[in-house]
């Protein structure tokens, strides 16, 4: 009896599957749409992470747009030079430009461990929500909340929460797509050239004494790095040292000079 039931079930479901499968097969042949063969080739060489850094929803849309010439062949930010060359091979054109690869850099060295807290935040563990509802529990209104919205957003799995609840960028995995930059509610993450070796790990636009009071590793706008820099690459903007990577020679003198050690080796 039970065996019959099983056989019946198998026959019924198998029959249904067969009928619908063949129906789909017939319609897909009858209603076949001609597609550009390059689209599938392009789709194979694109990273496939659907990060959206090119401005289109996903790699499939990007492949179609590249094949039809709507966007230039170097549109894939995440893929870098390698992908550009592969795309150019598919499209049959010469590569003339060189893409300078970028990497994400966390401009905060303090975080939960080194900055005092205003109160105990017990809400949803998400930076965007924490910032929207309570403006964060950190005393520093520019510092990293460390709840990992960027980690969750990274399509390439390059970010992780490390020491002091600060996110750590895995430079080997990071492609510079910029998704985390747009996710971070405090705009702490910035894209720096891959060759950069020095960065200012602070985002605070507060005045020096204010920073000193709440954080031991913040930029206090003391001007020491600006003076010591021989190539004039560092400027103070809104009480914060900014490095111009076009001028920086990565000599490292500012790292030694910085009293709060907020200029770091990457």
């Amino acid at each position, binding site marked *: 009896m039970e065996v019959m039931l099983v056989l019946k079930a198998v026959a*019924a479901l198998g029959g249904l599957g067969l009928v619908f499968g063949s129906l789909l097969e017939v319609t897909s042949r009858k209603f076949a749409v001609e597609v550009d063969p390059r689209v599938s080739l392009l789709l194979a060489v694109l990273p496939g992470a659907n990060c959206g850094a090119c401005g289109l929803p996903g790699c499939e849309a990007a492949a179609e747009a590249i094949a039809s010439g709507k966007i230039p062949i170097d549109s894939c930010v995440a893929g870098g030079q390698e992908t550009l060359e592969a795309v150019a091979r598919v499209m049959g054109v010469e590569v003339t430009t060189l893409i300078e690869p970028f990497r994400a850099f966390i401009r905060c060295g303090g975080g939960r461990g080194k900055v005092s807290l205003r109160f105990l935040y017990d809400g949803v563990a998400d930076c965007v929500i924490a910032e929207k509802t309570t403006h964060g529990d950190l005393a520093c209104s520019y510092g990293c909340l460390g709840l990992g919205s960027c980690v969750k957003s990274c399509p390439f799995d390059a970010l992780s929460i490390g020491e002091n609840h600060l996110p750590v960028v895995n430079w080997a995995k990071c492609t510079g797509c910029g998704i985390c930059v747009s996710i971070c509610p405090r705009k702490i993450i910035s894209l720096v050239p891959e060759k950069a070796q020095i960065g200012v790990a602070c985002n605070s636009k507060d005045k020096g004494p204010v920073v000193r009071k709440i954080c031991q590793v913040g930029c206090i706008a003391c001007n020491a790095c600006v003076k010591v820099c021989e190539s004039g690459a560092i400027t103070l903007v809104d009480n914060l040292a900014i490095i111009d990577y076009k001028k920086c020679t990565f000599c490292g003198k500012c790292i030694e000079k910085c009293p709060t050690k907020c200029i770091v080796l990457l």
Partner: protein
Amino acid sequence: MSELLRLFLIFLTAALVQNILLIRFIGLCPFFGVSSKVETSIGMGIAVTFVMTMASSACWLIWNYLLNPLGIGEFLYIVSFILVIASLVQFEEIVIKKISPPLYRAMGIYLPLITTNCAVLAAATEGVKPGFLKLNVAFHYSFIEAIIFSIGVALGFTLVIIIFSTIRERIELAPVPSIFKGIPITFITAALMSLAFMAFYGLFGL
């Protein structure tokens, strides 16, 4: 009750009194996901209407002529109905891609979403087992009644998602407190709409 009146009541009950989105809270993902613009919600409504009607009639036939006579319906209906719905969505996608590329691009992502849309499965299941959600299987729909029922459910879905998207378009411009911006105010709006639809409860005696 005359036959025509009965069909009319089945239709109204499915569309308004037992509205699938606002009264029974089934199929909420497209309700919140696709309703930010009127055009996309109209597209989604058309797609759901088509799939729901086709799927319900196919499921009714399969239930009444295959599963039930064999005595295997009770444990196999969800699997086979999902099979039917998935195939139909695939079918619809292929056909629309060929016949109307603009419509395909407009609905693009939402079509595959219907495959796993619980509203479609609920409508198909209720077409063959009326009232199974309320745990009383007292009556039985004929084929025509099942089709009218599923059209009612689908049109109720379309009506509500279009009304909702027009409200959402206006809320975009309204000075909503920053904490409520986005999804929270959308949920509150949906709750108020649901409250309004409760008023249909006392209208018809089916």
